[in-house]
């Protein structure tokens, strides 16, 4: 119910007691301002981190090979280690529960041509699981499937940018594209969050590439994702175990760093995760700290305001004010001031962050913003605290015998 007289009373009270109103408003504005700025800075730091490590699949493990650097079991150093299909099967079988998706890859660089257009792209031959390892999104058509692998079909799945560059504005689906002299049918177009380079890739079935480009069963790389239910330590153990078993399989010295390289995202993630969780705790402490300071400030002011208005309350009661009207006039006034002041704090904080954003970029703080909902909930917390802090003394004041209040000079 809108009671215009009540609001008139409140606005008069705010207007005629400017110092008091400004004082309590300033506390809230300042608390929200600090909250916004500190939270924004911490968020900016967080953004810098996640921007740096966003690309790859978070639970990926990548197996690459090189030459041995140490002689072992009578074998010379400098021996080239080559992954083959059977190694893929070995990992698939031996680490069945530990792996989620597993993809083998062969890399080639080719020149693609369609009609009069020509361009260089990297060609990667894969099996169907690769879609999930890379987290590629098929926009149209389909990905490489098991039938392609079995029949060694001459099909390709091209990145969004390949389609744009080679096919202009026409859909590439069903068209034949020439890759270094051999014609392939485009069966799908995909997009990837990893950036432009990831969308300039052409995928084809692994078996097709193995037959056409070498007639062997060689693999350049095996990518897999570990069981997503693993925690960091389990995932790291799995990576170490995989490396050990592969070294054993290829007769590589256990301390040979070059022959088999198992790159485990879990290691990197653990570091990032620790960093971000420390940052998270920091943010939380900062946020809570400023909020608590704000709450204490507004509580003090509310108690002071009620104390200051005791006599007025007594007069109003003697003139027939009900306890309810006393409480509502005090509370609505404080809520109004807190809300307005909180909004100013939000505006000011957001403004300062926006203004300082380009300068802060130099200090590894990217896009230092705070979500509106967070600041609004912070403001609501302050309003709630102010209400609670005001309610108790207001209620007490409303119960004071008018005669006691009137004597209060």
């Amino acid at each position, binding site marked *: 119910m809108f009671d215009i007289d009540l609001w008139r009373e409140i606005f008069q*009270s705010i207007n005629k007691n400017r110092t008091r109103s400004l004082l309590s408003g300033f506390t809230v504005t300042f608390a929200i301002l600090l909250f916004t700025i500190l939270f924004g800075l911490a968020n900016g730091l967080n953004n810098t981190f996640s921007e740096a490590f966003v690309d790859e699949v978070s639970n990926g493990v990548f197996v690459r090979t090189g030459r041995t650097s140490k002689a072992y079991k009578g074998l010379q150093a400098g021996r080239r280690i080559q992954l083959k299909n059977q190694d893929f099967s070995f990992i698939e079988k031996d680490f069945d529960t530990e792996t989620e998706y597993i993809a083998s890859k062969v890399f080639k660089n080719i020149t693609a041509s369609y009609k009069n257009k020509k361009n260089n792209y990297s060609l990667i031959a894969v099996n169907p699981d690769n879609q999930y390892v890379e987290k590629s999104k098929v926009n149209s058509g389909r990905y490489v499937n098991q039938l392609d692998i079995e029949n060694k079909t001459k099909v390709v799945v091209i990145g969004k940018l390949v389609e744009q560059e080679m096919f202009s504005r026409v859909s590439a689906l069903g068209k034949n594209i020439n890759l270094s002299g051999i014609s392939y049918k485009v069966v799908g177009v995909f997009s990837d969050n990893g950036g432009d380079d990831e969308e300039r890739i052409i995928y084809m079935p692994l078996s097709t590439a193995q037959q056409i480009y070498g007639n062997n069963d060689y693999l350049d790389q095996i990518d897999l994702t570990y069981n997503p239910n693993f925690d960091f330590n389990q995932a790291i153990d799995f990576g170490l175990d995989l490396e050990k078993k592969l070294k054993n399989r290829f007769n590589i010295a256990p301390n040979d760093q070059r022959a088999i390289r198992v790159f485990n995202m879990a290691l990197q993630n653990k570091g990032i995760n620790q960093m971000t969780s420390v940052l998270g705790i920091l943010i939380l402490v900062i946020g809570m700290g400023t909020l608590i300071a704000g709450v204490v400030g507004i509580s003090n002011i509310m108690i002071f305001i009620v104390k200051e208005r005791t006599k007025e309350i007594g007069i109003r009661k003697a003139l027939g004010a009900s306890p309810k009207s006393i409480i509502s006039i005090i509370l609505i006034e404080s809520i109004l001031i807190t809300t307005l002041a909180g909004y100013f704090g939000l505006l000011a904080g957001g403004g300062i962050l926006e203004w300082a954003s380009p300068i802060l970029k130099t200090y590894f703080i990217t896009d230092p913003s705070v979500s509106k909902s967070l600041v609004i909930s912070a403001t609501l917390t302050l309003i709630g605290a102010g209400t609670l802090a005001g309610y108790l003394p207001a209620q007490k004041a409303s119960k004071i015998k008018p005669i006691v209040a009137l004597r209060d000079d």
Partner: protein
Amino acid sequence: MTVYITDTSNYQKPMLEINQLHKSYAIGDSSLHVLKGIDLSVAKGEMVAIMGSSGSGKSTLLNIIGMLDEADSGEYVLDSVTIKNLTEKKAAIYRNKFLGFIFQSFNLINYKNALENVALPLYYQGLKRKERQEKARFHLQKVGLLDWQTHLPSELSGGQKQRVAIARALASNPKLLLADEPTGALDTTTSSDIMAFLQQLNDEGKTILIVTHEEDIAAMCKRIIRLRDGIIMEDKTVTQVRAESHV
């Protein structure tokens, strides 16, 4: 104990009826017995002075009558309504409807101008803004301060403040006017003005209770009740001395 007979024909119902009123205040561990059984009946249209030295309980009595304070025991009937075990809300309604207060220290709200102060009890009566201001202006005119309606209390003299307070007390058209040392903070001339005005109100039929310790103020009433140590020592009707108005 006073026997109260309801006789609708000729008998004028008392405005105020008090029987065996007791009140104690706790002071530390001991308690101070301030009112020790007060019996009092005030008829409509009376102008009563309650006198006594400080500590005699006169202000306490007025506060209980004004529902600003509660009695420990005893009966209090105001205009046929028994005032007992009042909730805060009920007390607020009764204060607003039945009573008008005039205080020694005026008790005007300092950030409201004269008109707004007078209109405040009407706000608590739930009147519309227009109506409130109209009534408030009427009462301000009655106390001769219509020209001062937009002035804040800090811009008024003591006498003017008290007249604003009287206008405020009259605004809700109460059955009973309660004045606690209304001239206590005023000089003799101004005191005389205020008393003249109260007498005029009484002439118009208002029932007025004045707490005072000044004999000459009491003499301007029609009845004087003297309190000492919490009991009524003397209750006499006097010939009213008319106050000289200087306005």
